[in-house]
């Protein structure tokens, strides 16, 4: 009996018992749908994360004020701290020092307004973060020195405020001051999103955070990636010295290595994926048991048919294949339905909003093949025992069966 014949007769058997076949498939449908959706979400999440880290500069170290409650006396980070880190004699391993200061602010243009993250930066930030100018220009050193009232708009902020107009040269109001837009930035994506504005660090200090010389965060980059450890010790010694921290006392600042964060996030994501895989596997096992159960019922119900087929010349292998293929086809149909539902679900979810970023589920060819392979496999595994039972039936007994 050819494979094609077996497939045809399997399809007839499935189709002639629609309700039962559908209910039997349901386990596989749900299992495959869940696994595909979760994996595609995971992949979308991972893609988003990778973008974020690439934009942030994964090779940078971020210094910020300690939030540890055990540290009683905290000196805030200042622009002077940042300048001290640029001293090649005490910090030879550091190549880039980029201090930043952020605050939320509402900006207005005409009737449009947006509440966005405003960050005061120095031009050197482009060596840490992947800002690409879309229109106009970026912030320059002169802007910083002159405390110019200029801003650069993130992609989404530019769209929200000015729509399709070119924002460059326009005047935007924020917190009682007027700022001239000198440039817009390209879309970055990732978890940072594109809803932000940038201005010179000095302008930020005087206009939005109420004077002072404080900064929120200092990003530093090593001369080369193997010098990250020296960078950490140089930063520690320079800042402890400047903040008058006695020997034995704790640092009043923390240094975050983005690579560690990336590694820990990836580990979390891997754990998450494994967990989801396990949940999916359990639902597939349950689905497989359902198929085995219904195939056993089917073998009993069709004992006479098996007897007739054997009497007219079906070999054991023919009967075995017939039931195996039927189980696999049942499961594969379930898998296809599950896959279709997952694709529909992914499409409906489209872009899932997480704060100011989006995660787009990615259904790759790999997932599709694995999902279909696993559903056929589940069918074959759960169909094996019923198919053997069918193949071993005695033709005389089977013909007598009512």
């Amino acid at each position, binding site marked *: *009996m*050819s494979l094609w*014949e077996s497939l045809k007769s399997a399809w*007839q*058997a499935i189709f*002639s018992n629609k309700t039962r076949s559908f209910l039997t498939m349901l386990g596989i449908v749900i299992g495959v749908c869940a696994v595909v959706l979760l994996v595609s979400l995971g992949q979308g999440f991972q893609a988003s994360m990778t973008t974020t880290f690439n934009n942030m500069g994964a090779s940078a170290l971020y210094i910020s004020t300690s939030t540890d409650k055990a540290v009683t006396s905290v000196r805030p980070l200042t622009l002077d701290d940042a300048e001290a880190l640029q001293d090649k004699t005490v910090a030879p391993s550091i190549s880039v020092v980029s201090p930043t200061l952020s605050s939320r602010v509402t900006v207005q243009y005409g009737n449009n307004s947006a509440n966005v993250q405003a960050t005061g930066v120095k031009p050197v930030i482009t060596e840490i973060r992947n800002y690409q100018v879309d229109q106009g220009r970026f912030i320059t050193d002169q802007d910083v020195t002159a405390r110019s009232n200029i801003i650069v708009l993130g992609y989404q902020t530019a769209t929200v405020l000015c729509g399709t107009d070119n924002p460059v040269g326009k005047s935007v109001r924020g917190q009682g001051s007027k700022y001239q837009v000198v440039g817009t930035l390209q879309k970055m994506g990732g978890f940072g999103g594109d809803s932000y504005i940038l201005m010179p660090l000095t302008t930020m200090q005087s206009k939005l955070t109420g004077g002072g010389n404080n900064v929120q965060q200092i990003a530093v980059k090593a001369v080369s990636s193997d010098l990250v450890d020296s960078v950490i010790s140089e930063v520690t010694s320079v800042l402890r010295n400047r903040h008058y921290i006695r020997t034995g006392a704790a640092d009043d600042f923390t240094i975050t290595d983005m690579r560690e964060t990336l590694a820990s996030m990836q580990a979390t994501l891997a754990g998450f994926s494994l967990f989801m895989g396990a949940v999916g596997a359990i639902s597939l096992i349950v689905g497989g048991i359902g198929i085995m159960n219904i195939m056993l019922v089917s073998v009993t119900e069709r004992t*006479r*048919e098996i*007897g*007739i*087929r*054997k*009497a*007219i*010349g*079906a*070999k*054991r*292998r*023919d009967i075995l294949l017939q039931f195996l293929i039927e189980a696999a086809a049942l499961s594969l149909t379930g898998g296809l339905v599950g896959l279709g539902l997952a694709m529909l679900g992914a499409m409906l979810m489209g872009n899932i909003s997480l704060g100011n970023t989006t995660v787009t589920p990615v259904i790759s060819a790999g997932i599709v093949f694995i999902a279909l392979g696993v559903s056929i496999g589940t069918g074959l595994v759960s169909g094996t025992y019923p198919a053997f039972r069918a193949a071993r039936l005695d*033709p*005389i007994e089977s*013909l007598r069966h009512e």
Partner: protein
Amino acid sequence: MIELKNISKIYDIGDVKVAALNNVSFTCEKGEFISIMGHSGSGKSTMMNILGCLDRPTSGSYIIDSVDVAGMTDDELAAMRNRKLGFVFQSYNLLPKLTAIANVELPLIYSGNNHRRQRALAALEAVGIGKRASHKPSEMSGGEQQRVAIARALINDPLVILADEPTGNLDTQMSHNIMSLLVEQSKKGITIIVVTHEEDIAAYTQRTIYLRDGIIIEDKKR
């Protein structure tokens, strides 16, 4: 062409051994039309199962077309049933979900033949039921279903057709039609063996073998 030599079939029922067939021997020639008669328990079903290669004898040899089938494996027996034998049952034994033509095609599927549809249609036409090819068994009368079963039995050009009470579920007129159809086939050179308990039916055949308690008590030519 068919030769049974000292065939015995012994069933173990607990400690008791029951001989369903006890040292039975007979031969039949190509194109012979034979009936096997006997009361229930006489061994005619066992005889039919052995003749049909559905069961193996406990001892003795069974030769079809100069091949001894007594020692064959299950799959070899299946191939034998497929190529050399055709079955007609009292309850027709058609697959209810398949159309008449699909039922007739089934043996060809297992023997891997091409042009199945044409051959099956030709077989249906040969038994006078070509117009009902696309009907399912439930849409046909008993006589029609039995014709489909005969078409199925004929499809692989068998040497022997084994009919187990082929008219048991049919009225007199239908029985007559079916038996005439079988007579026609035997005239074409197919050996036909019918199991029955009705003398009227046996009267269509050329030779009747009477069984009692697993022994041939009479072998009568008409």
